[in-house]
């Protein structure tokens, strides 16, 4: 290994350790802070750190996409946390632990087993160089010949979500447009931008 490789390795290791500490630390902070908003965004920081670790693995697309999805989800989750939970602003002290001894031992135990396994398992030596497009190879490796099925499933999931929303909605087309579906404009509490 050349000196450049060695420096790159050291930098990567240091970055990895820092990001890992951030991810685990902020994940733990989710339960320590009193405010729902802070808990949500502590979780967001933890996820962003995980995305950054993926970037270290040369999985550029996956890393950035993790950041995109997680930040969007955390922003929406914040809305719901604040709507449903008590004490959203953390103005009162609150404890979010339940069944502390058992939960802690399970959580810490799982972490030790997984992390210890990752460190102590006898990983094989890399033969040759990583492929050019790591993301594509990972995708092919995981999904392989089932790629088309996966894309189809994505469309099916979206359709299911939309159908579920339509079924769950308290007001149907007939409430909005009258029994003959001819009422214009629609009888909505707030008027929409397009359409009936």
């Amino acid at each position, binding site marked *: 290994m050349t000196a450049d490789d060695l420096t790159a390795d050291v930098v990567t290791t240091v970055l990895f350790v820092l990001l890992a500490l951030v991810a685990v630390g902020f994940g733990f902070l989710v339960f320590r802070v009193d*405010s729902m*908003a*802070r808990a949500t*965004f502590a979780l*967001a920081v933890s996820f962003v750190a995980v995305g950054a670790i993926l970037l270290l693995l040369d999985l*550029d*697309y996956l890393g*950035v*996409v993790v*950041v*995109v999805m997680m*930040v*969007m989800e*955390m*922003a*929406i989750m*914040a*809305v719901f946390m604040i709507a449903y939970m008590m004490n959203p*602003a*953390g*103005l009162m002290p609150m404890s979010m632990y339940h069944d502390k001894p058992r939960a802690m031992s399970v959580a810490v135990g799982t972490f030790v087993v997984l992390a210890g396994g990752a460190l102590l398992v006898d990983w094989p030596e890399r033969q040759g160089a990583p492929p050019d497009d790591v993301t594509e190879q990972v995708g092919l490796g995981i999904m392989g010949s089932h790629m088309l099925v996966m894309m189809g499933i994505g469309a099916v999931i979206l359709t299911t979500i939309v159908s579920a929303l339509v079924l769950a909605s308290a007001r149907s087309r007939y409430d909005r447009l009258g029994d003959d579906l001819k009422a214009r404009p629609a009888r909505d509490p*707030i*008027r*929409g*931008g*397009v*359409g009936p």
Partner: protein
Amino acid sequence: MPVSELLLAPLALVLLAGFVVVSFGADRALAARAAGRPLTAAGLSPWPDVARLLLQRRRTTTAPDALLWRVGGAGPLVAAVLMLAVVPLGDAVIADLPVGIVWFNAMDVLLWAFIWLAGWGAASATALIGGYRYLAQALAYELPLMFALTAPAVAAASLDVREVVAAQGDRWHVVEMPIAFTVFLLCVAAFSLWGPFRAPAADDLAGGVLAESSGADRLLLLAGRHALVVAGAAFAVPLFLGGGDGPLLPDWTWQLLKTLGVLLVLVVVRRRLPVLRPERFAEVGWVLLVPLTLLQVLVTSLIVLAEAP
């Protein structure tokens, strides 16, 4: 333009500041014309506004979430600067990411967090409503934005911004995907709280997310807003307008001129259109823009297939 890598980041910041000043001046010029005032150089300069914000004392409210508030206030400017990191100037780019387009998308998604935090942290009813309005607006424009970003990526078969520029050799993307370009510009205005999309920071909410900030915090948030418009305009050029393509002048000059053009279009849009309330825009975003952008991606894919060797 031969420029060493070290100089690129400060140069980008200088150019960013320059374009912010130009967009502010253009905005003031149009306002002066509408009001019937004579145009003077002093009237166009942003310096009085910057000076007053630098001099103004900071204030706070009862029981704000100070950490989240300041993060939210400074966030948009940081996001704008990070967006610029993947915009190439001529041949040089600060961060040569193979997934530049997705990086841009990630930076604008970070704004979901930042602007909501700016509204939440202020502990004020109007600021909080502003933050929630932003999320409502963001839900409506984010999918169209993602699909509008997908179209040039499909046409160039790559997520790397420089390869998208290279793929536009003889025909700019704006010619074959005008819908994606228009939607992209709309979404740039939307994520920067600009013009018709400034409902989260609008006057009817006493300034919305800006309602309680003053002094340096307000300056950061306002500067972030202008910087986001500039970053969005700068990103539109390599994606849709051929990057530095053009006769006679060198690449980087064309790029700057095109950015200026897009920026002026956005300023005119700001002056001419009323504010679109998020509840009206929500239906437009989902029912109109999502199918349109999907169709655009379909058309682009068909063109790519038709032209495949």
